């Protein structure tokens, strides 16, 4: 059975701005899928329609056998726990420490009151420290997040998502604000999370070369429509199809990579 099933998904802003048009695809358990496309193609909207951070105008998302649109507020929260989310701007609470931010991933499992007073169980804290250690942030545990580098912040974001014990990770441009070396570290982590932990990853990427290097499968989006869905060996023509006229430099990149 597919972990995620998206059928005829559409999202309309205002009267005539169609951000997504009849998007359909499915993702199997453990897959690493990269969604690529030019900026403004609707990648972010697509990701947010899956966990209903944005409510789609039309169509259906079935995650882990549950129809997302039917869920009431509390059921939606329960379902969201199973989906970790990584953001371009990390979306950490920057005045809090690394450990406090990581533990925020557990809030969905707690009563409102326990969450308000930051009452976490011993095993939760232990897990948090283990994940932090795994991501190489041990020395930063008690640092405030606004004192971290971009790469470190994104690792905190990953830790916060992992401690949710998710079935799937939605990553919205996770490396768009990072330098190349930090980008590589983050992509390596995500790839390992998918391979070793069996967590499905759906990653929005702007960079074709990164997508080709890491993904099992590529979904190309342009102007709110899926224009490519298949294995990560795109021809320059296919890249052109996804990126339109903005593809000039990208095609060159891809060509170079195939040559090497």
């Amino acid at each position, binding site marked *: 059975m597919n972990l995620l099933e998206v059928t005829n998904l559409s999202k309309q802003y205002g009267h005539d701005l169609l951000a997504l048009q009849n998007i359909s695809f499915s993702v199997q358990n453990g897959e690493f899928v990269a969604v690529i496309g030019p900026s403004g193609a609707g990648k972010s909207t697509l990701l947010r329609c899956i966990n209903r951070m944005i409510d789609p105008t039309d169509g259906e998302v079935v995650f882990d056998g549950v129809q997302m649109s039917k869920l009431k507020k509390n059921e939606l929260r329960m379902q969201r726990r199973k989906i970790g989310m990584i953001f371009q701007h990390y979306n950490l609470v920057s005045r809090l420490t690394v450990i406090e931010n990581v533990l925020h991933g557990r809030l969905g499992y707690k009563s409102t009151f326990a969450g308000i007073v930051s009452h976490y169980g011993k095993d939760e804290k232990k897990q948090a420290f283990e994940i932090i250690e795994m991501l*190489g942030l041990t020395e930063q545990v008690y640092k405030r997040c606004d004192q971290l580098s971009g790469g470190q912040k994104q690792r905190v974001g990953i830790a916060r998502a992992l401690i949710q014990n998710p079935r799937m990770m939605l990553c919205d441009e996770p490396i768009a604000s990072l330098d190349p070396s930090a980008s590589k570290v983050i992509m390596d982590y995500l790839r390992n999370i998918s391979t070793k*932990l069996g967590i499905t990853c759906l990653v929005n990427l702007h960079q074709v070369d990164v997508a080709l290097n890491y993904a099992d499968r590529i979904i190309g989006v342009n102007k709110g429509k899926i224009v490519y869905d298949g294995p990560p060996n795109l021809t320059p023509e296919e890249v052109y199809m996804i990126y339109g006229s903005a593809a000039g430099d990208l095609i060159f990149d891809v060509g170079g990579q195939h040559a090497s």
Partner: protein
Amino acid sequence: MNYLDSLEALRTQFPSYKSGVTLHNYSIKKVTKASIVMRITLLSLVILTVYGFYTFDYKDIRIIDAITQALTTFKTMFTQPRFNHFNFGQGVYQVAVTLGLTFLTTLIGAFIALFLGLFAAQNLSSTVVSNAIKSFVAVIRAIDTVLWVLIFAVAAGLGSVAAVIGMTFHTIGYLIKAYSESFEELDPGVIEALRGSGANWWQIVFQAVIPSSATSLLSWTFMRFEINYAVAVAMGAAAGAGGIGFELFMAGNHYYDLREVGLITYFILSVAIVLELVSIRLKLRLNTH
């Protein structure tokens, strides 16, 4: 299927994993100076507030009665506003007088503050001059406009002259601080580059400093315009400067005419809201350009 079981297997896969680093103490709170100061501040505010309520001079007012009475008063004021001592045209005229006072004091104040602000900015002036102006200005701002107006009133008599001078005085104090801080935010490289090309101080000011801080100067000036509107109302009521504030004072303190107080409040409120909307739109436009 819990992935945490496979953590061990995963660890070796991660480049940054350092074996031997273990944390036995799973504490998640860390006390910092900032959090302590924040708590002390909040706690003192609460204590001072409670203590304040004990010491207030309540005269012989019974609070519950007074509040019920206030509610009835509000109801009369705002549901049955009516003209009694003047008509709509005169109301508009009085609002115009108040706006005139606002405009005049803001404009003169801004003009003078622009020059003094240059000398108060650390990066454009000497430290001694800058500090001298800034401390003087801090004292000016510490006193409410009404006191300045009353002080000038001894020499000029109560009325619009004292109000304009006093309000201008306070406006200058406020704007010098705001302007000089805007100037100080200027990129030091720009000044250096112009100085390197042989520009003199006035050229630097007019070619670099004022053009690049114009946006923030304008938005501070509009903000002060809004403040001065409220001050102009106050000066009408408390220092005989005329305008809608004076009418409000007469209606409230002389005729005890609730309906007219309500009506005048509506006049004042609607102008203030228009000013706020204009200022928000201007700020948006300035920021996008």
